[in-house]
């Protein structure tokens, strides 16, 4: 198995994310830095999106903070395997809270795509669904078929459980679709959409 040619999954990330976002029109979405931010932006910019461009490891923990603050809204974290691995402990924090309105979707290509496709731990034996399950998540799903997107969307929209879906995607890079990098703008837009004023 060479370093760069190993394929972890077959799902097209762009198509899958577009489908998922379209099926969850109400969801508040946090995206992990790198390709997940590009995928979600490529699916169509919306004020309910908070795009991370840095702070690697923050996505799931930010989702937890939002989910507790907005228990009536569904919160969807869309991140990559590398970003999730850096914030692995946040799965324990989430498991201890069990918010009923939080779903973590990991776009898992088994590689750090942004830095040149070095293998990540998920293609070296680590199963994020197993970690989430051991952390007390209500459900986990290992997704190898694009059609499973509807099952995830159903859980997101139901707001009755905390779950993690690991999507086995193809390890190829798509053209970058760049969301705004101005964090202050994205923050204020996100909050404004929920009815909160800036200072």
């Amino acid at each position, binding site marked *: 198995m060479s370093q760069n040619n190993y394929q972890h999954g077959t799902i097209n990330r762009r198509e899958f994310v577009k489908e998922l976002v379209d099926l969850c029109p109400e969801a508040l979405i946090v995206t992990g830095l790198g390709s997940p931010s590009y995928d979600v932006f490529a699916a169509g910019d919306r004020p309910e999106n908070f795009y991370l461009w840095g702070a690697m490891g923050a996505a799931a*923990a930010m989702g*937890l903070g939002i989910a507790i603050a907005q228990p009536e809204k569904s919160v969807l974290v869309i991140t990559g395997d590398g970003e999730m691995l850096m914030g692995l402990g946040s799965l324990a924090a989430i498991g201890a809270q069990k918010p009923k309105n939080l779903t973590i979707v990991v776009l898992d290509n088994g590689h750090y795509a942004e830095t040149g496709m070095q293998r990540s731990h998920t293609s070296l034996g680590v199963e994020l669904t197993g970690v989430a399950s051991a952390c007390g998540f209500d459900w986990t799903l290992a997704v190898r078929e694009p059609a499973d997107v509807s099952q995830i969307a159903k859980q997101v929209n139901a707001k009755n459980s905390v779950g993690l879906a690991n999507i086995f995607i193809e390890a190829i890079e798509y053209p970058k679709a760049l969301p705004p990098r101005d964090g202050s703008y994205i923050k204020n837009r996100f*909050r404004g959409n929920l009815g909160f004023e800036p200072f």
Partner: protein
Amino acid sequence: MDVKEQTLQHAWKDEIFDIFKRGSVEQLVYVPDAGHSQVIKKAWADDVMKPVPVTTEEDGVAVVCGSWLGGKRAVLLMQSSGVGNCVNMFSLIKNCQFPFFCLVTMRGEWAEFNQWQTPMGSATQQAFEMMGINVLRADSPQSVPDVVSAGFDAAFVGGDAVAVLLSQSLIGRKKWDAK
């Protein structure tokens, strides 16, 4: 089975909780420390303020920012050793100009028995400041309510990022008798 509480009761700890309560804090995010235990205990007994333990402090930075995105105030409690864990995560605060309030119990600065606490304790203030977070400090029990309240308002009224350091001398000597 209840585990017996082993920390000293201090009036200023109740005053900190009261400031958070009056300030409508809805998430108390923390990695525990003996100095924070009274506040943490009260949060667990509170109907509104949700205690959110995190396994590492940088996750806590992300959680409190998430809370603000969702329109609610959250505060972060940690020990000085945890501040170093947060450094890159503080870029979230700087880039997005999140209001941020963090309460830090100091180690490695006063009658410290365990010198492993000293390197980070000595660098705690600088670690915050190099990432653009303002630092206030309370050294006496009398000053705690004023300093905490001033920092809290600077964060949630003024939109600033503030850390309040609680001197190790406030907490008292840790007992190290090997019995």
